[in-house]
Each structure stands twice: as C-alpha cells, then as structure tokens.
C-alpha cells in the first residue's frame, strides 16, 4: 500500500466533512450544538488503537461497513459524556437512566445516525454503495472493544501491522459532552481510497510505519530518561503520528493551563516540539527533582527546562540515528500558559509553508498518576517527507 501526502489530504478533507455532517445530525437530533474540533488521520498499529480504548475506559458503539469500502466506525465516549448525551436526548425521562435498554438504545441510534451520514459521504466520493451493520454497544463490562476487528477485512493483519485510523474529535453543549468518531478502513479499502484520489509520488506505507516505530522508540527513550531523572517509574501511554490540517494542531489541545517547555529543532527534519504538563504534574515532577526546594520558583523553572531538554533529546536522538542525520535543538524556553495558545505559534510558523502537519504526540505517565507528560512534535512537512524517502530504500 502506498500513501502520499496528497491522498492523506483527501482523506483528511473527506473525514472532516463527514464529521461535520455527523455533528450537524447530532445538533438536530439532540438540540445541542455540536462541533468538530479536529480531524486526524492517524497511523498506528492495531495494538495502539486497542490500547487506547482499554486505557481510557470508554463506552462505544461500533458499526461495520462493507461494499465499496470495508471496515468499522466507532463512536466513543467517556461514561460521563455518554450519560450527559442520554440526558440531552431524553431529558428527565423515566426509565432512561444509565444502563437501561432505552439509554443504551439511544446511544446506538445516535451512532447509527452520525455514522450513517459519515459513511454516505465516502460512498458519494467513491461513487459506490456502502452498507452499514446494526450498531453494537460496548462498555467496559464487555469483551475487548476491538474484538473481531478481523471480521471487517482485517483478517490478514497482525497486531503490529500499521493501520490508518480516521479520528474526529467532537464536542457538544459547550464541552460538556466530548466524543470521538473513528473510522478504520481495511487495508484494501485504503488502497481503494488512495487510487480514487490519484497517487502521486507515493511512499510505501512501510516508510511511515518505520517512522512510526522510530517515534515509539523515541518515546520509550524519553520515558526511560524521565525515570532516571526522577526515580519514578514511567511508561509511555500512547505514541502516535497523525496527519492533521495545520489549524487543527492547536485545537488538539484544550484551554487548560499547561506548564513546560518549547524548543525548536534543526536538521533533517527541523521543526518544533512542546513538552507540556498540567499544573499539578509540573509541581509534582519539579518536587521530585528538588526535594525540599519546592518554594523556589526560579529553581522549579530551571528543573522543568532541564526535563524538557532531556526529554527532547531522548525523543529526537533516535530520529537522527535512524535517519542518519543530525538534529540540533535550541535552548528550551519555559512556558506556562493556555495549552492551545502555546502550540498555536508553533503551528502558525509552519502554516506559512504547509497546510497540513504531521503531528507526533506522545503521553508519558507515572503508574500512580503522579504526573503526566505530553510531548507534541511538529516536524516540517517537506523535510519529513524527504526524511521518509531516505527510509524507503532500507525497507
């Protein structure tokens, strides 16, 4: 399977308009304004996707599709969002409490309507027919959420095979309800879509896969470095690469205040990186590095800068090694501000020369939730592509 930036752009646009249609459907159905925050085309392994579902304790509704395209769509909510949505659909209604058949049925129907509209868009684009299945409701009481992914055309894919996932983040009722709308087409279907959008200088998906592995290694290294520095065990919760419209990058973060560092990196590729903590995490990690010196703000800042420095090196060194290039990093700049506003200038710098971005994000967490570290890396698109081309011959 070959992928190229042009087809990624097409996928992104198509997924986004499908998500907008789905958002409009929910607005009409529940009477609450629903927006698409960001549409991402993610490249990861089956295991990555399953893990994310498992970690986040989600309630989800699955609908399969077949015909012109095969695969699965999923609407996933936190239990709280699910409850609020049911309430919006059937305000104050008896017999519609969480867990009742009526409540579950309403979520299944919401999925049916939203995902039906979403799939219609793809059918329209490909000028074909796509059938959808009845919805299946899955919560944490049931078996693994992506069980039987095999039946949707994934029979030949091992858990480590890379798949493309279209992920749309939506919110409704002023952020009170948040959910994701996923579409996972089978590998054959990806080919169908790529062919329809016209291949042009395509790279074999293995190149993206190799890069994806490199990112995972970088995240592991960063995690090991944090553990070494703080003495607290950390693990990489998630590490993924997605293709996002440039304005979608800051929209991947919320308004909550974050503390951390921002750095520029130079070489092949060059770009920007932000290492961010929520405020309690920043306090905790600084405390672990400066026992007894918590009060000294300048020292805390310095400690956070040093973490940022080390995490960035851990993260990027692997890239340089694998690509056989050099990547230099700038001195870290301490930041403490609204999350989306921190990433906004980074995306804007890149927006001068690119409409889409490869966003690499990784979350490193301690086992007892003492702190969570989010890494956002934004390599220059053109340079990354060149770097990926360098990876191709090795595959």
């Amino acid at each position, binding site marked *: 399977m070959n992928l190229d930036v042009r087809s990624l752009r097409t996928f992104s646009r198509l997924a986004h308009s499908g998500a907008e*249609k789905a*958002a*409009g*459907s929910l*607005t*009409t159905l529940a009477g*609450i*304004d*629903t*927006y698409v*925050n960001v549409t991402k085309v993610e490249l990861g392994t089956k295991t990555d996707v399953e893990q994310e579902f498992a970690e986040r304790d989600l309630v989800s509704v699955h609908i399969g599709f077949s015909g012109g395209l095969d695969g699965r769509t999923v609407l996933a909510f936190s239990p709280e969002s699910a409850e609020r949505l049911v309430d919006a659909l059937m305000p104050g209604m008896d017999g519609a409490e969480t867990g009742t058949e009526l409540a579950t049925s309403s979520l299944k129907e919401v999925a049916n309507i939203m995902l039906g*509209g979403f799939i219609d868009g793809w059918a329209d684009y490909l000028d074909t027919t796509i059938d959808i299945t009845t919805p299946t409701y899955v919560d944490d009481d049931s078996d693994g959420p992506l069980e039987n992914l095999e039946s949707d055309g994934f029979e030949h894919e091992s858990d480590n095979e890379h798949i493309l996932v279209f992920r749309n983040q939506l919110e409704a009722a*002023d952020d009170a309800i948040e959910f994701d709308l996923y579409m996972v087409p089978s590998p054959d279907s990806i080919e169908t879509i790529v062919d329809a959008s016209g291949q042009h200088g395509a790279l074999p998906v293995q190149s993206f896969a190799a890069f994806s592995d490199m990112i995972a290694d970088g995240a592991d290294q960063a995690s090991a470095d944090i553990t070494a520095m703080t003495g607290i065990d950390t693990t990489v919760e998630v590490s993924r690469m997605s293709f996002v419209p*440039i*304005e*979608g990058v*800051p*929209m991947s*973060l919320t*308004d909550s*205040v974050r503390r951390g560092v*921002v750095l*520029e990196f*130079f070489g092949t590729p*060059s770009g920007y990186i932000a290492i961010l903590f929520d405020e309690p995490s920043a306090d905790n990690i600084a405390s672990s590095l400066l026992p007894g010196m918590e009060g000294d703000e300048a020292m805390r800042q310095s400690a956070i800068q040093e973490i940022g420095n080390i995490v960035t090196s851990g993260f990027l060194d692997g890239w340089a090694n694998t690509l056989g290039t050099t990547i230099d990093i*700038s001195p870290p*700049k301490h*930041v*403490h*501000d*609204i*999350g*989306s*506003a*921190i*990433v*906004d*200038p*980074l*995306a*804007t*710098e890149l*927006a*001068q020369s690119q*409409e889409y971005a490869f966003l690499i994000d990784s979350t490193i967490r301690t086992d007892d939730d003492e702190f969570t570290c989010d890494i956002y890396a934004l390599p220059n698109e053109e340079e990354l592509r060149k770097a990926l081309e360098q990876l191709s011959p090795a595959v």
Partner: protein
Amino acid sequence: MQVYTTDTTSTHSARIKVGIADYAFGTDGNTLTTSGLGSCIGVALYDAEAGVSGLAHAMLPEADPDGDPAKFADTGIEALLAEMRDEGADTSRIVAKLAGGSAMFDFESSNGGKSIGERNVEAARKTLEKHGIDIVAEDVGGSHGRSLELDGKTGDLRVRSAKTGDQTL
C-alpha cells in the same frame, strides 16, 4: 417515492464556538467564543443597532490565493464582514476590538524580522481601516496566550489570559 431530508447545518444557539482559522456571526445576542490565541489574531466586530456580532480567528496576515480565506486576517475579516452585511450590519456602524497577536517565542528561524503575531495585528488594522471600521479597544502583543468571549448583547469582549488575568474590553 418522495424523499424527505432535514437540513442539518447548525442553527445558532446561545454560545457559538469559533475555531482556529475560522469565523462566525450571531444575530440573536449570542456569545461568540474562541481560544488558543497565541500569535493568532482575534477580531471582534459589533453593530449594536443591527444586533449583529462577529468573531474571526486568523492565523496568518495576508492571504494565499489558494488558501482558506478564514485562515488569513485580511480575507477572514472581509469574509466575516460580507456575512454580517447580509444580516443587516453596516460597516459605518460596525466597531472592532482586537486581541491576540502575541510573540510568545523568539524563533531563530524568523531571522529577527517582525513576528507573525505583529504582522497579524498589522494586517487586521490595515483591513479594518480599508473598510472604514474603527478599532475601539484592543489587547494585543505581549507574550501570553488569550481566550475570547464576545457578548452579542452588549458588544463586550472578555479577554482571558492565564498570565495577566481577565479583562473586559
């Protein structure tokens, strides 16, 4: 066989969210919100008499011919103005308030030229001047992020900043 479909485009409700590289207007005293203004510029427009308000969130100063108009300060403001005029707003009555355009980081790659934030502010000023719209208040520049809320009933622009606290323009 007769087909019955429903137009599902969002109807305006009490709070309308404006994304990044986006704009929206309100005609029912709605509150328009946007966040994540780092180097981006937020332009709030208000015609009290017509009861029409608008908010644009642009990333870059001047438009690329193939680009999405909403992404650029010049075309974004003009597109928003056009829509507001369709709803009865008049440029002679519209007032503007600006917020954003920070220079949060001193990137080595910008080669010491003007930051994008500054250029966004300039482009917004230039475009508004071209249309004869007065800027009655502003909170621009600096090195901090902002979130905005435009009250469609009063034209007040609430600017939230994690660093400098909140203020109303």
